[in-house]
């Protein structure tokens, strides 16, 4: 309601004074009537009320200006003056070219950074998913707090149960991103794909371009080998011909028949180029959690209802297989799921860039105000010879809009360039479905920002400066004396605001850069220098059993050793900081039986060859690494195991050493009738940041390669020289062993490490850049204001010099005044930064928000900036020649 009162500010004052309350009451009654008739009626009332006020607007303005302007001066012709306005504005802007370029540059910087951040926000949070009614699609997964896993991935048996019993979904499906070896004439290519259950496209709401979806029979165990290909593959490999249906593709050395082509929108969650049916067996009851779920809710169903229904369908499993209720299904909004990591970052960047825009706007406002003050005389003369006030205001508006259009266009270009730069520096961080190209929303955003900036920060100050009495303006301006007190105060206030915001941003940016530095210097627990890693995809048909799997890997290692420049060759199932995880459970000998509510954290399980540890630079805490005889007995005999320090601490709290202790794979008491395969700890490694530098370390273990030979798919090469330079030779050597087994994901460990912190690097540096930009803007703003004020005081200063003031006194006076203003701003800003630091805590990686070094650097940098900005004008003031200055104007 008070908003309507605000709107009434635009109604004719005469009416408002007399009938304000009644008008408000009337609007309230109309609104109340409309409420009964629903949202559209309410919107209609608002619309009519706005139109009603807007209808009275021109009359009001004309009346206002006529009353305040001069009387009896002939009216200018009102129509078609825009052309001359633009011409005049151009002349005036061109005349003050330096000032105009400064304003445009500031606007472009402010708007450009805002556009860059907005396009991030737009791509991540605002742009709709390319599916019909995307709001009804939910992400489905399972959670197991007792295993210390927020998401376990979905168990196929659980899924089968949900699909049979659920009542809230139109369709529910699982997908599993997989890569295939696609046979070509030259050998094999690696192609990203997915195995999906039959309803997957029904969930997304997508139809094949040609062909059909998987049938129930095809999505059953041992079903026919069929595949759907993506539009891109269709065009690249089959020339987009309709006779592609029924053609064959050799995937993972098996022949699949193409039954359809899917459009680009189906490439969810991104980069998927072909699909095969999952062919899961609901009757296997194994403890394997490896799929991800999606479901389309029926219309009107909420996420809460979907969650409740999922838990209800899980009841059968709680009653039989999972009596401790360890694993619980959940559904979550799709966008929320895929943007979880970005929420804090996006809001921090949004806040920072808004502050930057405000600093830029304060600058523009200060410049425009100073300019308007300097032009009071011109305006006074134009008024006196008969220009109407409305005309002058329109003239100023046109000038400002022209500036903002140029600034906005430049800003849009800068923003686009910045976002492209950012995205190329973040290859794998943005979710792959996102799209950051220019769209209508961004253009609208840029136009709105620029125009709002122009009107609020350009036109308003001009109005403010002009709104004084004509005669007074003429008198003071003619005398060429100091600026009016009101204008001066506004200028100082703007400088205070600029410095406050700049120091706030400088401190926050500094904290984040420092946090980044701390992350970068964190010990990863391995030695990333001169290490090349890659993965081989060995199709199951190539190595049907462990013996053949082991034989292939032996050949691979031997061949790698022969590559020039390689000094050590290791095999691992899952390299550090590579976004992989393979979990299992282990039980220690003589461990007390676990209560139903005791946590049972999942253990990171890796398979490692003896040479892996030295190639990767993993450090031994006690005991020994594997040797070639470890695991030679295979899975069915007692064996050896290496564990990490965290494992020892969590499994045997208080134990001095883990060496010699025994454990077995599995959770709870061993199944009766089957002998226990004991694993004896032979080595304890120091902790290694497997999940990334900022993530906690989980208990983890290593098993020798012969235990699970077909999982040891990543090859780790320690090299004598630059590891990247031998990549082609390595690639060729892998193909030489078997042309249908390509090496992929070839990266040095340094690259992987850099990639794992690239998101933090990006936003830290963005904030750092924003902070420096704010500083530069504050420098320019303060310089401009002081210069203007000094130029206005020329006469006064001249008098002082003439009366015997020393030049050093003059510059000191000028400096003292400006620096006082600057320091007020800095103090406010730093106080604010200490408060704001708390909101950043989650991004600071343990750096305290009141970090003394950063605060000191910020204070010094800003003080130096303030001094620099004011020193030149002060010096200029001290050089005032009394004779010249007294004659000036």
């Amino acid at each position, binding site marked *: 309601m008070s908003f309507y009162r605000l709107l009434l500010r635009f109604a004719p004052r005469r009416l408002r004074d007399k009938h304000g309350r009644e008008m408000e009451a009337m609007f309230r009654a109309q609104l109340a009537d409309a409420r009964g008739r629903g949202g559209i009626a309410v919107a209609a009332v608002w619309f009519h*009320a706005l139109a*009603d006020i807007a209808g009275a607007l021109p009359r009001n303005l004309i009346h206002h200006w006529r009353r305040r302007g001069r009387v009896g001066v002939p009216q200018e012709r009102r129509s078609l003056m825009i052309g001359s306005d633009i011409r005049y504005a151009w002349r005036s802007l061109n005349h003050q070219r330096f000032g105009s370029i400064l304003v445009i540059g500031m606007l472009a910087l402010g708007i450009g950074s805002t556009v860059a951040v907005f396009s991030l926000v737009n791509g991540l949070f605002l742009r709709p998913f390319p599916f019909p009614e995307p709001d009804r699609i939910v992400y489905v997964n399972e959670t197991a707090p007792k295993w210390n896993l927020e998401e376990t991935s979905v168990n196929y048996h659980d899924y089968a149960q949900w699909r049979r019993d659920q009542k809230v979904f139109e369709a529910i499906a699982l997908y599993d991103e997989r890569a295939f070896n696609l046979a070509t004439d030259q050998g094999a290519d690696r192609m990203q794909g997915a195995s999906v259950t039959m309803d997957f496209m029904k969930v997304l709401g997508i139809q094949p371009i040609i062909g059909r979806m998987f049938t129930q029979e095809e999505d059953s165990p041992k079903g026919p080998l069929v595949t759907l290909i993506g539009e891109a593959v269709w065009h690249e490999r089959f020339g987009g011909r309709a006779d592609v249906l029924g053609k064959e593709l050799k995937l993972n050395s098996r022949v699949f028949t193409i039954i359809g082509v899917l459009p680009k929108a189906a490439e969810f969650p991104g980069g998927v180029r072909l699909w095969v049916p999952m062919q899961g067996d609901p009757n296997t009851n194994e403890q394997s959690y490896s799929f991800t779920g999606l479901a389309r809710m029926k219309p009107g169903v909420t996420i809460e209802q979907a969650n409740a229904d999922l838990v209800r369908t899980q009841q059968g499993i709680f009653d039989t297989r999972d009596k401790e209720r360890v694993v619980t299904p959940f559904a979550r909004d799709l966008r929320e799921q895929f943007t979880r990591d970005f929420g804090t970052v996006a809001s921090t960047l949004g806040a920072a860039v808004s502050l930057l825009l405000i600093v830029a706007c304060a600058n523009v406002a200060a410049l425009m105000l100073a300019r308007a003050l300097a032009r009071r005389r011109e305006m006074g003369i134009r008024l006196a010879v008969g220009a109407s006030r409305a005309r002058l205001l329109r003239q100023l508006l046109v000038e400002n809009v022209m500036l903002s259009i140029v600034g906005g266009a430049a800003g849009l270009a800068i923003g686009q360039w910045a976002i492209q730069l950012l995205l190329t520096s973040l290859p794998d961080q943005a979710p792959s479905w996102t799209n950051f190209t220019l769209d209508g929303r961004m253009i609208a955003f840029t136009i709105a920002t620029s125009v709002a900036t122009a009107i609020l920060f350009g036109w308003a100050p001009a109005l403010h400066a002009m709104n004084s009495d004509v005669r007074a303006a003429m008198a003071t301006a003619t005398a060429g004396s100091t600026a009016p007190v009101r204008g001066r105060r506004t200028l100082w206030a703007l400088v205070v605001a600029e410095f406050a915001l700049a120091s706030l941003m400088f401190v926050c940016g500094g904290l984040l850069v420092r946090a980044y530095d701390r992350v970068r210097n964190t010990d990863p627990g391995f030695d990333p220098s001169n290490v090349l890693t890659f993965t081989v995809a060995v199709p199951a048909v190539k190595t049907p059993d462990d013996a053949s799997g082991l034989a292939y890997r032996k050949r691979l290692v031997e061949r790698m050793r022969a590559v020039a420049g390689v000094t050590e060759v290791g095999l691992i199932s899952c390299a550090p900081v590579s976004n992989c995880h393979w979990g299992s459970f282990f039980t220690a000998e003589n461990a007390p039986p676990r209560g139903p509510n005791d946590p049972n954290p999942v253990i990171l399980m890796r398979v490692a060859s003896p040479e892996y540890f030295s190639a990767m630079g993993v450090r031994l805490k006690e005991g020994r690494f594997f040797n070639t005889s470890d695991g030679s007995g295979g899975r069915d005999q007692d064996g050896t195991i290496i564990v990490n320090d965290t494992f020892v601490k969590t499994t045997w709290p208080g134990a001095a050493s883990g060496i010699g202790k025994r454990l077995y794979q599995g959770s709870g008491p061993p199944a009766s009738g089957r002998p226990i395969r004991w694993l004896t700890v032979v080595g304890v490694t120091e902790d290694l940041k497997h999940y990334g530098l900022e993530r906690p370390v989980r208990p983890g273990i290593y098993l020798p390669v012969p235990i699970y030979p077909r999982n040891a798919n990543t090859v780790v090469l320690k090299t004598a020289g630059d590891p990247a330079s031998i990549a082609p030779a390595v690639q060729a050597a892998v193909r030489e062993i078997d042309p249908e087994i390509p090496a992929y994901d070839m990266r040095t460990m340094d690259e992987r490490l850099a990639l794992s912190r690239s998101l933090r690097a990006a936003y830290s540096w963005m904030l750092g850049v924003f902070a420096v930009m704010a500083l530069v803007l504050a420098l320019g703003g303060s310089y401009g204001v002081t210069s203007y004020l000094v130029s206005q005081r020329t006469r006064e200063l001249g008098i002082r010099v003439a009366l015997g003031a020393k030049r050093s006194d003059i510059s000191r006076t000028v400096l003292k005044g400006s620096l006082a203003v600057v320091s007020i701003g800095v103090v406010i800003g730093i106080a604010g930064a200490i408060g704001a630091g708390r909101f950043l805590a989650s991004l600071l990686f343990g750096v305290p928000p009141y970090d003394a070094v950063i605060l000191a650097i910020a204070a010094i940098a800003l003080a130096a900036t303030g001094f620099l900005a004011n020193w030149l004008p002060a010096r200029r003031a001290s050089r005032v020649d009394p004779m010249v200055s007294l004659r000036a104007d």
Partner: protein
Amino acid sequence: MKTREYLILLALAEADLHGLAIARAVQELSDGQTRLWPVSLYGTLESLEGSGLIEELEDARHRPADESEKKRFYRLTRTGHRALTAETDRLGAIVKIARSRLKPRPEGAK
């Protein structure tokens, strides 16, 4: 005379009313065709008052300190009544002429 002015006068011919009641009466009289919104309603009331067609009802009992607090009732002046009658006659005459000229179209013509 504008439609909304005419309708306001017509509403006030029946009873002395305040702003919101006038708006409601006008909506009813025009069969929902004309709705008045705050600024245009009070703007019209002001101009009608200015030309002497309506006047504000003096209420000695209730006089709040703030002018805008007041709920103002309006009544038709004698001039206003005359103007309303004249306008009604004029409109009636126009309608009569229009009716006599507008012959129903022959069936089937397009």
